[in-house]
């Protein structure tokens, strides 16, 4: 995992100190993580949705995370394909067993990747 200087980050974003610290602690417990799922962070850090979203946004702005979007397949798992913007999602996508499905009614999920 990339070492992130959270002390500097927190200095620059004092109002989000608690959320950034919670993410730092979570990353320290999951050193091999390359992808952050907001659902997991919400479950395991007990941050509220707004604080978590703000902290993730800061990490994206600082170039530490990259936000992409994935689509839920009809079986409820995420596709392998990722998109920079939800508008790029095509009408059909392959599920994880390579069966194509219509994306019109599928949920779109934000996912955060560690930038190397």
């Amino acid at each position, binding site marked *: 995992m990339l070492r992130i200087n959270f002390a500097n980050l927190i200095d620059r974003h004092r109002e989000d100190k608690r959320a950034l610290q919670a993410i730092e602690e979570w990353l320290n417990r999951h050193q091999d993580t*390359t*992808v952050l*799922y907001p*659902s*997991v962070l919400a479950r395991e850090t007990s941050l509220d949705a707004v604080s978590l979203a703000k902290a993730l946004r800061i990490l*994206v*702005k600082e*170039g530490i995370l*990259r*936000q992409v979007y994935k689509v839920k397949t009809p*079986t*409820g*798992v*995420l596709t*392998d*394909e990722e998109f*920079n*913007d939800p508008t790029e999602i095509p*009408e*059909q996508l*392959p599920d*994880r*067993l*390579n069966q*194509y499905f*219509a994306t*019109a009614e599928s949920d779109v999920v934000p996912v955060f990747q560690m*930038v*190397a």
Partner: protein
Amino acid sequence: MANYKELDETLALVYDHATFEQIQALLRTRKGDENVKITAETKEQIVYKNLRDAIDARAIDIEKVFDLIRDSEENGSQHIFYYKRKRSTPLEALAFDSVARQLFGKDWETQLENFPAIKQRPNSYQRSDFRKLPKRPSDWVLKVYGHTLVTRFTGKTEERQANHFWREYVTEDLRIVLMARWNAPDLLEIRVQRNESRRRIEEWHNRMWEMLGPAVVRRQFEPWELSKGIANLITEQRNNKALYTFRDASVIDKSGVHATFQMYEDQGGDLFASIETRDSIEGYLSAKGDFKGLTVTWEKQKSGTPQKELRVFLAARELHETVVSAHSAREDLDYVTNQLRQFNR
């Protein structure tokens, strides 16, 4: 760069085929240059701002960008069909010089100097590259670019009058990248880009065989089916956890019951983390169930290959077919082929 139009086309290819990380790695080669910015929030920004600025300032050579396109369009987001050389096919017939002479004639060396050909001709298929691979002098790659127009349904249906429905179709350009990868001494890969139409996949697969002819023909090979490899991967997973895990499996038993196992990625992504799932899949295997797909996650290794975890869907439709959904490094895909060779014995 001759003009802006070409640069726009080149950047569009980078955007379509290269990953964010690959583009960033290219920019990082000129780290410290005041005209090169490495970080970006989006892929659009890193391609159309950071990379464009670096090229405009001549901090990044356009040839390096072409290399990036070649590397990224050849490795990943593909169906790979494996074929094994028949014993009756002499190895010399598949040597680079022999294949080159048959494909390009007596002056093949002169012709190859014009490769790679980045530009495409409309509505046609053309051989765009034929080369040996670094560090693997007996291996080669033949690449074909194709272009066609496809008409597709947009999903919009409208009732304009009673009992009359209008469906909207659009015609679009489709750029096609096909490839043959010879792994001496015995394995040929036909790589075809992914598409929602199975008919197109099969058409492109056949087209690649046509483009290999007359030097390399299908009857010199047999499909290299992965059934034994799948069985070995499953039974030996306990001893190879650091090498690979499974994420999805689809199996049909002797009675025709179809079972699918899938792991949520936010819960680790390892199917065999569940003892019940491991027991079930091993049970299907020992009862001679028919595997209709197995996603293997090849784990990142300290040696640097694979550089990052790589997922490969085995036995996608046919037993000698795999699907690699993500763009990958060439060395990583070669690593997977080598692993499959070991497990499919």
